């Protein structure tokens, strides 16, 4: 049960933090259609957060709501992947991060629709529809920008190289993953690596981008609460009102 709780926080926190990052683009995107798409992606991810953290609170059984978990934990209690907390950089970095995550997220949710936990399966089924669109969109943009101008190609390749060492964490199994897998709730992350790599290779190929040769599993630790220096700033901003006005209803 503590493992299940932890795992649900991983799901919810990655959605929450990526949603936060994506939402930072609202009103600042390079084109109106992207303003809309970014807001929409963030909105979906916040919706997933509500479901995952809501269930996490139930599983924990300590009376914490999704909001309590989102707004009243400090960085060391967050379980999101480091990948999703990285600063947005330019639109290329943001889209590449989205694509690398979407490809993983899509496969994971697909597997989760067959989870032994009906609640998990239900959430996954709801989220999958949206994430399937996320992946379609981010793949498409990675391809078009990778195979666009020299500059857009260079930016996308730089983004890929920059993010690559963070991708390994998505597939790194630990004790929590093992327990949840044993219970049939979720696949072992490592089982998703090959499928993910195939998707990524296909899209990168079409995008005329080169698969980095660097190690992918350099930046681990987010799933156990050892984050980058960025997460603290995200939380300070995100949690301000709940922290400054404890107990208020909004």
């Amino acid at each position, binding site marked *: 049960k503590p493992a299940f709780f932890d795992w649900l926080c991983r799901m919810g926190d990655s959605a*929450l933090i990526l949603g*936060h990052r994506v*939402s*930072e683009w*609202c*009103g*600042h*995107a*390079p*084109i*109106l*259609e*992207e*303003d*809309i798409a970014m*807001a*929409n992606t*963030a*909105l979906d991810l*916040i*919706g997933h*957060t*509500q479901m995952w*953290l809501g269930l996490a609170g139930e599983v924990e059984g300590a009376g914490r709501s*999704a*909001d309590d978990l*989102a*707004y009243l934990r400090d960085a060391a209690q967050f379980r999101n992947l480091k990948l999703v907390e990285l600063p947005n950089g*330019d*639109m*290329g970095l943001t889209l590449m991060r989205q694509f690398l995550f979407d490809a993983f997220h899509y496969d994971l949710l697909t597997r989760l629709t067959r989870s032994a936990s009906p609640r998990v399966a239900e959430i996954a089924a709801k989220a999958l529809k949206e994430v399937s669109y996320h992946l379609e969109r981010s793949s498409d943009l990675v*391809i*078009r*920008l990778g*195979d*666009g*101008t020299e*500059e*857009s*190609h260079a*930016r996308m390749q730089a983004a890929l190289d920059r993010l690559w060492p963070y991708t390994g964490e998505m597939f790194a199994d630990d004790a929590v993953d093992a327990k949840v897998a044993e219970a049939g709730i979720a696949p072992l992350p490592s089982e998703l690596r090959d499928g993910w790599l195939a998707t990524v290779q296909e899209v990168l190929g079409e995008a005329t981008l080169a698969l980095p040769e660097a190690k992918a599993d350099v930046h681990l630790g987010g799933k156990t609460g050892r984050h980058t220096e960025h997460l603290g700033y*995200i939380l300070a*901003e*995100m949690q*301000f*009102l*709940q922290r400054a*006005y404890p*107990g*208020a*209803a*909004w």
Partner: protein
Amino acid sequence: SPEELAFQDRVDNGEKIEPKDWMPEGYRKTLVRQIGQHAHSEIVGQLPEGNWITRAPTLERKAILLAKVQDEAGHGLYLYSAAETLGVSRDELLDKLHSGQMKYSSIFNYPTLNWADIGAVGWLVDGAAIMNQVPLQRTSYGPYSRAMIRICKEESFHQRQGYSIMMKMAQGTPEQKAMAQDALNRFWYPSLMMFGPSDKDSVHSAQSMAWKIKINTNDELRQKFVDQTVPQAEYLGLTIPDENLKWNEEKQGYDFSQPDWTEFFEVLKGNGPCNQERMEARVKAWEDGAWFRDGLTAYSEKAAKRRAAGAVAAE
């Protein structure tokens, strides 16, 4: 001219003017200015509200706010499309926005300083916008009228959400109530300004009304807005920052103080609290995004060539 007379007849009969129909140059120009400015307002309007997305106090409020900002960008799309039917591209309009030749609604030059401001923007700013926009559903230009119909539907939803935030704040802790009152204090007069100066000071109004580009006078709409809003404020237990506000039995409406029109013109001239920051944000987004837009264009040109080559090869 006979064309002008025929055109005016159609307008008078309540017929919609469509893009391919003949229209007076002044009509076209006025519409482009008005629709363009409205579109720009939707885009710039993302900024003051977007300012609180990352700090929204609950996941649900965050989701609602995201959806709202997304809607606004969507309204921008409809409106730019409506403007395009008049022969002016979105990029041309954006260029004019960025160079300062075109304006956006001055209300967005006011900052959002606490969470209740997000409520106040929905309640007052969207409320005033709806008041302006509802009659425009009957405007004479077809594409504009249809855009306004879609927009009004969503805006009234936004207004209710804004009011719901205000309700929570006004019924909340003393600090929350203070924020709600502070938000009302700051947004009240700027909202009244959204209807524009009194019609007697407005040169273009008469012609626009004849063309049914404008349906009501500014003062009519402002009065209507005040009459609608005062009871809502009372229900919230908040005080409208106007000592002269009182019910006038005779006119069956409220008497109220005019906003400070000097401030209005100062903001128009660029001296509002956030004019510079709003434009900096938009221009930066545009300039930083040049490579992105160029990349997409280059790709679609390549793709078109590949398709053409494929077609030739297939022959």
